[in-house]
């Protein structure tokens, strides 16, 4: 289990390769990467605030929960904080398993829980000023998929 919370950019391709290489013997790897969108060029930057200490704790709990629900040989969660421009990669998760169903479900579960249970908050900056991103009802509702 590899949990990282950092301000610095990360290399999605290189992390994917490294994660896969360290999960010897697996049959399936799934990765997810979240990227700062720029919807119509309206947004100049995004800033992510987090709760040092609780963040690592929450991500570890989410990864452990995933490992109890599915047969995972490896699990990576990497999430940035601080200021990011459109196009920058915000975070990634990766799961490895013997079978694809576990790898897919594990990654999907990590993302749903991370969205609503890990202490990150996004603020968007544009010509109009700054605004905190509101949580989506659909993100909270998504947790219901996992029973």
């Amino acid at each position, binding site marked *: 289990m590899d949990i990282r919370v950092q301000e610095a950019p990360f290399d999605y391709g290189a992390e994917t390769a490294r994660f896969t290489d360290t999960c010897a013997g697996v049959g399936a790897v799934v990765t997810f990467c*979240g990227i700062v969108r720029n919807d119509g060029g309206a947004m100049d930057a995004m800033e*992510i*605030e*987090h*709760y040092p*200490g*609780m963040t690592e*704790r*929450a991500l570890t709990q989410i990864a452990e929960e995933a490992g109890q629900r599915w047969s995972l040989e490896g699990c990576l969660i990497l*999430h940035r904080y601080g200021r990011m421009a459109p196009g920058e990669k*915000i*975070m990634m998760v990766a799961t490895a398993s013997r079978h694809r169903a576990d790898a897919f479900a594990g990654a999907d579960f990590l*993302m749903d829980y*991370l*969205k*609503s*249970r*890990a*202490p*990150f*908050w*996004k*603020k968007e900056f544009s010509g109009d000023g700054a605004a*905190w*991103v*509101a*949580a989506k009802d659909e993100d*909270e509702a998504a947790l219901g998929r996992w029973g």
Partner: protein
Amino acid sequence: MTLEILYFAWLRERIGLSRETVTTDATTVAELVAELRGREERYALAFSDMSAVRVALDQDLSEFDAPLAGVREVAFFPPMTGG
């Protein structure tokens, strides 16, 4: 009891503090919020809509009716928007 209280995102901005140490007789989170709300307008504003506020006790998500006994760190923040 003495508590370390942390505020994040727009709660931090509205209250104008990221953390403070508070001595209180409150026995639950709800009582603590009522006490903070009575202090100053900026607290009343920050805690005006509790459906938009989440709480963590010693870095675990919790509920407003949770007891404060034994707790050292209380954090208030809006619903999370990571990922």
